[in-house]
């Protein structure tokens, strides 16, 4: 081996020497190994890949997969012959004298040093290396630095090293008043009160900042703030989307996210519960609520829509979303063809899709399966039932029955029916039922009757004629295992049918009959009920009756959840030709792309997928998540393209820091989010001042190297929350249905929908922004103006803009003006002159005393307005909604304060 290696090396050295001289491109004759990722790939990406990629392979030559690049091209030549640049068509073409033959076509030729690099790389064997993000992170060495008195933790070592290499120096610590406001806004999304600022400013202990951080991480507002980041990724909204955009109850999921952050749920658990909570052994109700993550997809109930088309559309969104959120990988490219830039093949989209294609939800108005919370007395009854069952068996069995009652699954529905006669299936748009007539027949294959005691028939009958339903097994005239009369119902009802004698897996025949030839009813499906334990108990029948009652009890609220279809009635997944769901090719089973599954392991279901995402085997999740949190704090990620770590994404500014944090987060910190955030905010890097030095302005205008703290505009929700907070209006009420604070008339004029914006009263009008009712087709106006997401799809980063419409919001939106008036009211009764009042008002808003020059500006504003209002008393009354002229001018001043740049930005 060694011998061979040295031979190759020698051989190549000699050859290279000769070739380099022939090329006359000034090649230096060093024999350092060319690194594909840092040296070759950037040249290929820049110059070649748009024509020779994974989709477009001009001349039959593509550079995504090695075997492709090494293969024969259309003209019979070989693009790359490892070890032999002189035989490689690629080299011939990039150095060709004839412009019409030379690559890249119609562009400047590659630079001599680029040609040299490629030549050398081919000569050294043209070895491919995966893109950095697909290689597992390795423990980086924490750099030694010479300003270690500045550094507070390892982060600062990585940052400082880069600063030094760019001849930059870190900035000093921010003023304490600014720092405390910054960390409040970053960790809980709200500014500190004056008392909180003062407590920190006056605390001279060495760990004063750490104490504040700990306190904030323990605050319930922490979860609310970070939930709003996650809800952008989860595309959470209170409506279903599309035409009528009707309401959807899914706020319990929002509350689950808040609680998960507040409890500091480890991120691996956070992942598994949301993606596959329903597949966990004995899942709790919370586990099920978590799965609503992927029920935030749009639902189209418009007349004439095909439910299957929009079901698939949702499944596709779940695939794209999962890959973007956890892997920052642009899987959506692969839906129609192989990835143009990353080594992922077309079929692999559908192996990913197979994980998500087997849940029983469908694009129907009821949004089943839904988790029901019952009215209080029914909840008590359900508790009793559960307890009774647990007492006769185990807690686990009790839980299982609770889930059965709350969700009503597993249900066999029309898509599972094998054969039907005399029925009409209404399954378009707003319809979702099967109409059965006299003589109707439904056959369902392969139903496991093991331990099945009754079948609940979910149906609705509006006519008075009586019908009968007979259930047979094996054949049309097989043994009857159940039978029931059918009568008029009050809406859809679960009718229990006792099953006798069925123990095996059998084909079931449901036969409908009636004396009336006009008989009909509408059916939703058949729910299979297991045998209730405790048969010998005297209360047995009573409990059974209670269960039947609870199955039909009205829900207090509902949450759509994920439920996996049974094996016998699972869906198959096929490759869609060019992404078209109507044109199906080969059937595939669930798997993850080869690129990331080098061990060829098997992945059976969503639970396997979720566990893999947070396993040691995954190179991306730790980095992706660390980067998301970092980006939220610093306004830019270590990888700038938070949503794309692929070939087309940006290279990390601090790759070793990213890996160091990712390995800590997924390793010794056990996915502890609070620990991660604390480590970042207690770094010296985070605590720098935001003042831009002349040096930094020239050398680091975009603050890529973090020689100062970024100044970042607050988010849409933060801007409103802050205005309400500093004016004393903000409610601290948590959780529950979304609220409708004041919004102007006429914002909601959606077709085919009677839903109205009903302005919330009392404290509900002043809740934090994340509780505001989010209707996709008509989001809360000021949020959208300040770049909030409209939540149709996953949004990894909001793009901050700066527009006059934003100025109009903070100047004139009644919410903001009311906040100004309320702040003014608190200033009005205070003792002191205008200067004192200005200072107090400014302090309430910014947590510190204003610079004297700003005080002067504001005092002048008060003087001028006061003078004006003394001559325009009516206007003053309108502004102040009172007779106090002073309140009017104070309101104008407070409104100005809330429009200062420093107020809507964190320094």
């Amino acid at each position, binding site marked *: 081996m060694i011998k061979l290696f040295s031979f190759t090396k020698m051989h190549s050295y000699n050859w290279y020497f000769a070739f380099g001289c022939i090329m006359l491109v000034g090649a230096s004759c060093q024999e350092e190994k060319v690194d594909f990722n840092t040296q070759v790939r950037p040249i290929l990406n820049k110059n070649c890949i748009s024509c020779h990629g994974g989709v477009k392979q001009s001349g039959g030559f593509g550079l995504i997969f090695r075997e492709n690049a090494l293969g024969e091209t259309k003209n019979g030549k070989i693009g790359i012959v490892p070890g032999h640049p002189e035989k490689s068509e690629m080299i011939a073409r990039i150095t060709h004298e004839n412009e019409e033959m030379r690559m890249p076509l119609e562009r400047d030729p590659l630079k001599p040093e680029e040609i040299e690099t490629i030549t050398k790389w081919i000569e050294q064997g043209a070895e491919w290396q995966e893109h950095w993000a697909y290689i597992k992170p390795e423990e980086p060495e924490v750099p030694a630095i010479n300003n270690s008195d500045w550094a507070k933790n390892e982060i600062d070592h990585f940052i400082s090293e880069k600063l030094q290499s760019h001849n930059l120096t870190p900035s000093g610590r921010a003023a304490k008043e600014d720092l405390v406001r910054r960390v409040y806004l970053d960790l809980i999304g709200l500014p500190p009160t004056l008392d909180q600022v003062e407590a920190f400013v006056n605390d001279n202990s060495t760990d004063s900042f750490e104490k504040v951080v700990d306190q904030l991480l323990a605050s319930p507002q922490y979860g609310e703030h970070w939930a709003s980041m996650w809800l952008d990724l989860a595309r959470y909204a209170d409506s279903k989307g599309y035409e009528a955009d009707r309401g959807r109850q899914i706020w319990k999921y929002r509350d689950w996210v808040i609680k998960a952050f507040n409890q500091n749920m480890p991120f691996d658990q956070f992942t598994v519960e949301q993606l596959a909570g329903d597949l966990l052994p004995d899942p709790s109700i919370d586990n099920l609520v978590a799965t609503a993550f992927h029920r935030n997809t749009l639902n189209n109930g418009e007349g004439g829509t095909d439910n299957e088309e929009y079901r698939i559309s949702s499944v596709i969104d779940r695939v794209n979303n999962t890959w973007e959120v956890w892997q920052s990988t*642009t899987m959506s490219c692969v839906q129609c063809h192989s990835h143009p830039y990353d080594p992922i093949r077309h079929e692999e989209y559908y192996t990913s899709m197979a994980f998500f294609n087997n849940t029983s939800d469908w694009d129907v108005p009821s949004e089943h399966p839904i988790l029901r919370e019952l009215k209080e007395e029914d909840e008590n009854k359900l508790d009793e039932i559960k307890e009774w069952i647990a007492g006769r068996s185990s807690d686990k069995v009790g839980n299982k029955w609770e889930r059965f009652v709350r969700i009503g699954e597993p249900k066999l529905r029309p898509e599972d029916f094998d054969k039907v006669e005399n029925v009409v299936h209404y399954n378009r748009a707003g319809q979702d039922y099967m109409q059965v007539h006299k003589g109707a027949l439904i056959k369902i294959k392969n139903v496991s009757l093991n331990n099945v005691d009754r079948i609940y028939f979910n149906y609705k009958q509006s006519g008075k004629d009586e019908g009968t339903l007979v259930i047979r097994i094996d054949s049309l005239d097989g043994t009857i295992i159940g039978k029931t009369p059918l009568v008029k119902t009050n809406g859809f009802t679960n009718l229990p049918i006792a099953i006798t004698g069925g123990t095996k897996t059998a084909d079931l025949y449901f036969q409908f009959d009636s004396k009336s030839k006009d008989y009909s009813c509408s059916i939703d499906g058949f729910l299979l009920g297991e045998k209730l334990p405790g048969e010998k108990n005297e209360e047995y029948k009573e409990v059974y009756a209670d269960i039947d009652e609870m199955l039909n009890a009205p829900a207090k609220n509902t949450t759509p959840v994920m439920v996996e279809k049974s094996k016998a009635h699972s869906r198959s997944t096929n490759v869609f030709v060019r992404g078209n769901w109507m044109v199906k090719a080969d059937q595939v089973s669930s798997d993850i792309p080869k690129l990331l599954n080098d061990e060829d392991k098997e992945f059976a279901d969503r639970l396997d997928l979720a566990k893999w995402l947070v396993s040691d085997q995954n190179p991306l999740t730790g980095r992706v998540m660390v980067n998301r949190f970092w980006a939220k704090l610093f306004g830019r990620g270590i990888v700038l*393209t938070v949503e794309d770590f692929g070939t087309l994404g940006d290279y990390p500014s601090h790759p070793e820091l990213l890996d160091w944090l990712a390995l800590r987060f997924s390793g010794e910190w056990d996915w502890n989010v609070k620990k991660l955030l604390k480590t970042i905010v207690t770094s010296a890097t985070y605590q720098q001042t935001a003042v831009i030095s002349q040096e930094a302005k020239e050398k680091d205008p975009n603050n890529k190297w973090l020689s100062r703290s970024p100044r970042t505009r607050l988010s849409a929700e933060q801007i409103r929350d802050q205005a309400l907070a500093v004016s004393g209006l903000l409610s601290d009420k948590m959780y529950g249905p979304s609220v409708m604070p004041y919004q102007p008339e006429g914002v909601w004029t959606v077709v085919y929908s009677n839903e109205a914006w009903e302005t919330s009263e009392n404290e509900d009008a002043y809740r934090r922004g994340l509780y505001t009712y989010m209707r996709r087709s008509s989001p809360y106006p000021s949020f959208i103006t300040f770049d909030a997401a409209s939540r149709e799809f996953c949004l990894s980063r909001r793009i901050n803009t*700066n527009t006059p419409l934003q100025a109009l919001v903070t100047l004139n939106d009644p919410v903001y003006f009311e906040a100004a008036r309320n702040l003014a009211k608190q200033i009005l009764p205070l003792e002191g002159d205008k200067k004192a009042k200005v200072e107090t008002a400014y302090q309430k808003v910014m947590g510190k005393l204003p610079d004297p020059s700003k005080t002067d500006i504001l005092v002048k504003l008060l003087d001028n307005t006061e003078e004006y209002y003394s001559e325009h008393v009516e206007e003053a009354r309108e502004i102040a909604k009172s007779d106090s002229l002073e309140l009017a001018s104070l309101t104008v001043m407070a409104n*100005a304060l809330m429009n*200062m740049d420093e107020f809507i930005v964190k320094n």
Partner: protein
Amino acid sequence: MDLYNEARKTKLEYTTRRHFLKKCTTGLGGIALASLMGPQNVFGKSLEEKMLSDTLPHFYPKAKRVIYLHMAGAPSQLELFDYKPKLKELHDLDCPKSLLEGKKFAFIQGTPTMLGPQHEFKQYGQSGAYISDVLPHFSTIVDDVAIVKSMHTDEFNHAPAQLFLQTGSPRAGRPSIGAWVTYGLGSENENLPGYMVLVSGGKTPSAGKNAWGSGFLPSEYQGVQCRNSGDPILYVSNPDGMSRNIRRESLDAINAINQKQYEEFGDKEIMSRISQYEMAFKMQISVPDAMDITKEPDYIREMYGAEPGKASFANNCLLARRLVEQGVRFIQLYDWGWDMHGNFEGGSVNKGLKDKCDQVDKPMTALIKDLKQRGLLDDTLVVWGGEFGRTPMRENRGGVVMPFYGRDHHTEAFTIWMAGGGIKGGLSYGETDEIGYYGIKDRVHVHDLQATMLHQLGLDHEKFTYQFQGRDFRLTDVHGHVVKDLLA
């Protein structure tokens, strides 16, 4: 990054900020561009993205601005433009199986009957275009417009079809054409948004605000909806009791404080904020002014049939002309209520359709004439149409005969018309078969229309891209051809 992007980026690096600003002071877009370039700009890509505006248009534009008149709900081409005497003969006969097999309709089930045209047609103008009796005004301008009878689309439900038409994709979340255009070309005025939307007919279109959303483009490019009552643009007016004097005083204070802040922190974004506040102050005057049709002489209002204070398509047409004069780049009018299924009289292709035509015929005609007499039609592209067509069959929802004459949604053939902006006048383009079911000559797909519109604005729909989630997106996805025959 390919060389094109690389070159733009390199070019940018050599371009000083001052120079860049100078080149981009084209109103809203321009100033906001500046803001995106400040030191706190965290979105590296935006640099090269923004360079786009420096390299656009791709070629000389024929149209500087667009007015899109979207008849939400989809009017029947068979009662308005696409004259089919044969269909009249087939009236009430069962639809042949061949037209139904393998086809999907929104509501038609079983075997519907054929429905003959419910209004009379005559020929007009030098071009001799057939126009229905319910469009008496429009029939006077047929020589100024190109009527495209062979439009087709992929979507037969309103929301997806409207999104498809306006964003190039049937799923919500892509930028609308107006957002693309203002992103690419900026605005031509300093006091108004570059992309404005006016809605009539009592409802917003089925696709909701997504129809004028900015999708993955920065939110400043979303269409700004002007409201029919209250503030024309949300929050444009001062709170009660806040006079313009006091607003000026307070803005002076805000700006002075922001100036101090800039002196301390050196963040150029602060300077940008000062200019945004100044623009907001200007908009407080310019928006209500532009939206005030009482400023128009009586004869002009009469020409459109506009009545101040009413929420009508007529008022919106007049406003569109006013906004065009102010240099607004892209104006969309949505008029709701064209979905004539025959389920009630107002929803019939007889009375219902005629009522709707009475509301739009005069104003849309006036708009073309008024633009023309002001010399604005040459560089203003006007497009009129719905999101799909209607079936030659009578709708029989659920297999049941409907109480009135109505038609179901139809993707295979519909009619739009275009005028101005370098489009040939007096042209009838494309043909459908003798019952108007299917385009048989010169079919124009929705993506072709989009490509053609962009082309008239000087934008090559294949080169005009935006990178998002690792992929270059286009308005026309990977489809679309410019319909050269439509160009003057």
